[in-house]
């Protein structure tokens, strides 16, 4: 298990650095660029201001802005994307590179190989989310408002739980589909399709995006139970997998 963890940390380090840098870059500039645009738009474009006045007024609340633009959009989109990228490589990556034959013929249980790999995939998804979300905090000082920290942390926790579930779901796809690109596209299409369908039909109970921003207790429960069930299913599937 220790050997698998070491190998996985090393193998995926570049992905981790790129993901952290990209997310952090977006989060660090979110308030200085995005929030400032909202403040200035009224002065620069009176037509927009007259048409979207109430909406803009709402968004000029820093807490609403961070919730909708970071947790509900930028982080949501990229966290799902990175979770799928990290999860889909767990088994499909080994299969594609033909290293699966070496790895899965060692005297190590398949479950522990899979578990070691998924732990690293989850950590490499969650750490960039934590680092980048904290990058928002210094830039809050540039605006004359303060963040509601309990809500901020609740949203961060929701994002972490939802992203963990996404990695594990992608892990299942990586066992079933031997091709990373195909598997990744299938999972992303399912998630995007679900979000669009749920939004159009107003079926919030199946809306994947609400796992990031919905009711705190309910979403945490869904994400946790979903993660446990998905892990159980992956352990079952990995034992049956043929290489």
């Amino acid at each position, binding site marked *: 298990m*220790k*050997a*698998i963890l*070491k*190998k996985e940390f090393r*193998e995926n380090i570049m992905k981790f650095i790129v993901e952290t840098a990209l997310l952090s870059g977006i989060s660090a500039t979110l308030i200085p660029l995005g929030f400032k645009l909202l403040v200035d738009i009224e002065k620069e474009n009176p037509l927009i201001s007259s048409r979207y006045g109430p909406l803009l007024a709402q968004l000029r609340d820093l807490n609403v802005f961070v919730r909708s633009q970071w947790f509900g959009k930028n982080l949501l989109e990229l966290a799902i994307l990175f979770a799928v990228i990290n999860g889909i490589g767990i088994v499909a990556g080994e299969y594609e*590179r*033909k*290293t699966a*034959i*070496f790895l*899965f*013929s*060692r*005297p*190590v*249980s*398949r479950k522990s190989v899979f578990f070691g790999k998924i732990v690293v995939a989850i950590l490499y998804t969650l750490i960039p989310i934590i680092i980048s979300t904290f990058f928002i905090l210094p830039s809050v000082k540039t605006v004359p408002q303060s963040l509601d920290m309990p809500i901020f942390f609740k949203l961060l926790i929701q994002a972490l739980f939802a992203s963990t579930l996404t990695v594990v779901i992608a892990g299942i796809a990586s066992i079933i589909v031997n091709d990373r690109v195909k598997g990744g596209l299938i999972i992303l299409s399912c998630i995007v399709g679900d979000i669009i369908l749920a939004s159009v039909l107003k079926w919030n109970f199946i809306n994947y995006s609400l796992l990031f921003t919905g009711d705190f207790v309910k979403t945490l429960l869904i994400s946790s139970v979903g993660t446990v069930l998905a892990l159980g299913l992956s352990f079952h599937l990995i*034992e*049956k*997998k*043929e*290489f």
Partner: protein
Amino acid sequence: MNILKCENLTKSYGNVKALNEFSFTVPRGSITGLLGPNGAGKTTTLKIINGLITKYGGEVEIFGEKISPGNFSYRRKIGFVPEEFSLYEYMKGTEIIAFNGELTGKSGEKIIENLQSVFNLPLERKIATYSRGMRKLLSLYLALQTNPELLVLDEPTDGLDPIVRSKLFDFIFDYVARFKTTILFSSHILSEIERISDRVIFIKNGRRILEEDIDSLKENSALFVAKAKSGNAKIPGFVTYEEKDGFMEIRAIGNAKEVEEKLRDAGFEVVKKIPLTFEEIVVSYTEAYK
């Protein structure tokens, strides 16, 4: 005593039957060659033994223990060199050996030193820079690192030049003599099987055609040239018929005494009895099972 016993192994890929009730045994201390043409089912068999294929019919008993999905501890006693595989390209030779050592719980420093004294692989270089033959040798290092009781080699000389191939055989002979390791190795090269095996299992279309000691196989097999005006002898074993100048030439493989008796009983007159080479025996079996 058998170290490995496979009974009625059956495996299909869609409509294609890769293995069809394939049964064989590997006695402890033997060097058993699994011989067969490409696509005969050799690799599938070796993958089943190594736990890489989980859905199949039949049973595999190894070290006296039946294998099943989730059972992996028996693999501590197996060294496996797969036919087609890759190692982590970004690792150096030393790193993959250390990684394998951590996974198997055996560092095998001594055996790696021995292997290095013969093959001298550039272990400080990244695997990405290795040739195909070097990769194959490295995988042999990994298989032997744990000092296995059973060494399973799938086309081990594929990609090796003749000099390294010869060194490899010498090393294997020496290794077997020292550690009494049992070897099961697959190949489609007859001379390889004949050179290093003491037993042969011939597989074709997923079925066992032959399982015998090489020496007794050679002893018992002969080409009979028998003449008869007409008729069709029911000969045990495998027979090919050819008409030549009014003679019926029969190529019969099997117990020579029995074949001779049956030929006489059927009214054939045995003109010649010629011992067959290993290659001729295998060709005859292949033809008989077209």
